[in-house]
């Protein structure tokens, strides 16, 4: 009985230790962990671009575009949180994290600008779309770099 208890205790300890912050991860694991929030951000920027262009072409209402952009602000918040709480194992991972955080923050800024424009504030449509495109490109480049590491 004691042996069983000891084994159960050791298993529980191993599980808890495995969940500890800063647990050793391979470079591939690190790249994979950062790819998910980057893809989430790309999706948010893509939605924001579509909603903005539709409003510019008078194919949607300001209310729908505003709601779509607000929803994407929340998606980006979640992505930024995932990147910011990531614990890198080495300098390479830390570099990727810094780049990812900058890219997601830029995306947040671009979507916030688009929302300002949709509500009659801020700059013109062309510069808003250009900022969203630039953000999408940065996110895509970074994702491609990490995909090379993960072999996807």
């Amino acid at each position: 009985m004691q042996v069983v208890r000891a084994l159960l205790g050791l298993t529980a300890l191993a599980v808890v230790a495995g969940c500890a912050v800063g647990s050793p991860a391979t470079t591939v694991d690190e790249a994979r962990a950062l790819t998910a929030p980057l893809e989430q951000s790309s999706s948010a920027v893509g939605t924001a671009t579509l909603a903005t262009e539709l409003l510019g072409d008078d194919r949607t209402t300001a209310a729908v575009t505003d709601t779509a952009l607000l929803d994407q602000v929340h998606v980006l918040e979640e992505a930024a949180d995932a990147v910011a709480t990531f614990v890198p194992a080495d300098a390479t991972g830390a570099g990727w994290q810094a780049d990812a955080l900058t890219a997601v923050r830029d995306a947040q800024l671009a979507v916030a600008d688009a929302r300002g424009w949709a509500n009659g504030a801020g700059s013109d449509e062309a510069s808003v779309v250009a900022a969203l495109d630039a953000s999408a490109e940065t996110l895509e480049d970074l994702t491609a770099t990490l995909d090379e590491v993960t072999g996807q």
Partner: protein
Amino acid sequence: MKRLLGVALGILTAIGGFLDIGDLVTNAVVGSRFGLSLAWVVVVGVIGICLFASMSGRVAAVSGRATFEIIRERLGPRAAGANLTASFLINLLTLTAEVGGIALALQLASSVEPRLWIPVAAFALWLVVWRTKFSTMENVTGLVGLTLVVFAVAVFLLGPDWSELADQALSPTVPAAEGHAVYWYYAIALFGAAMTPYEVFFFSSGAVEEKWTVKDLAQSRLNVLVGFPFGGVLSVAIAACAAIVFLPAGIEVSSLSQIVLPVALAGGKLALAVVIVGIVAATFGAALETSLSSGYTLAQFMGWSWGKFRRPAQAARFHLTMIVCILVAGAVLMTSVDPIKITEFSVVFSAIALPLTYLPILLVANDPEYMGEHVNGKVTNALALVYLVIIVTASVAAIPLMIATGAGS
């Protein structure tokens, strides 16, 4: 002529009333991630709900009694009580998702925060449940919900590559970016969205409300066998819109505001207005059905007086149950919980609880004591047994897949 109009109205309301927030969200999410490679699940789900609804409608029309009265009598109070608890809780979860859906749809029309719309939606829901006749309620929401046909129109206006869509639907494969576990998790979610238990409680209780008899069986069968498949076509159209616009752009659907963008892209502001009206009608109609289902299930189990055909004072506990459920749904949503997340969980839990309602109906539909000469035929029983296996498999696999995939994330 009057009979023909009655048949047409029944079919149209079955089409318009088929979709709810679960169908809207799940189909759009699946379309944006898997294209049409899960369209086969909609077909399986639609055949299943046709079978399930026609059996429960027949049981109600022949016996003159609704689902939970018979479940309690057939299974005994203890087993039926466990069944009631699970069904009632999942129904409440679905009601919460539908009320959240109304608020999100009204946000699209107004840009006003959903939390401000939740009390309005809950009050409107109670008012309609309290004041409106059953047939008026069913016909109005069903007919207005038909405006969701705009999703099918949008598919044509978007001018897709038809061969690619056909390829996705007819030769389904798991996309490289998604794992097999996630694919099957969403297959179960889609199945749960198509075969939601509340539809059956509502359908069988509605048969008693409208005083169906054996003579009405042919019309009921027609409503189900024509109306529900057309509703399924609208489900596939929602997935197709997402597959055409979002999948190539790498956009993953996570909000209701995204679901309407392909329609706006295809048809501009007019189509957008139509789709928002349709979403409000579909979610409001489903919220009415789930509110009523909560009252139906509890009142039928407890033996209380129930039904819209009675004045509220004559069915006080039935109405009180609905009021409490609407208040609970509103209160949960006021905590700022995401209605889309609730919807995603509600469709999966619907699939988990499905055997609890399906099996008793199947047993009763085969019991000559209740059904006399109208027991299931051999073909129906063969199909029903195949579906029993599918339903039990989906129910058993749902939770492990939910854990393994992080709820499909």
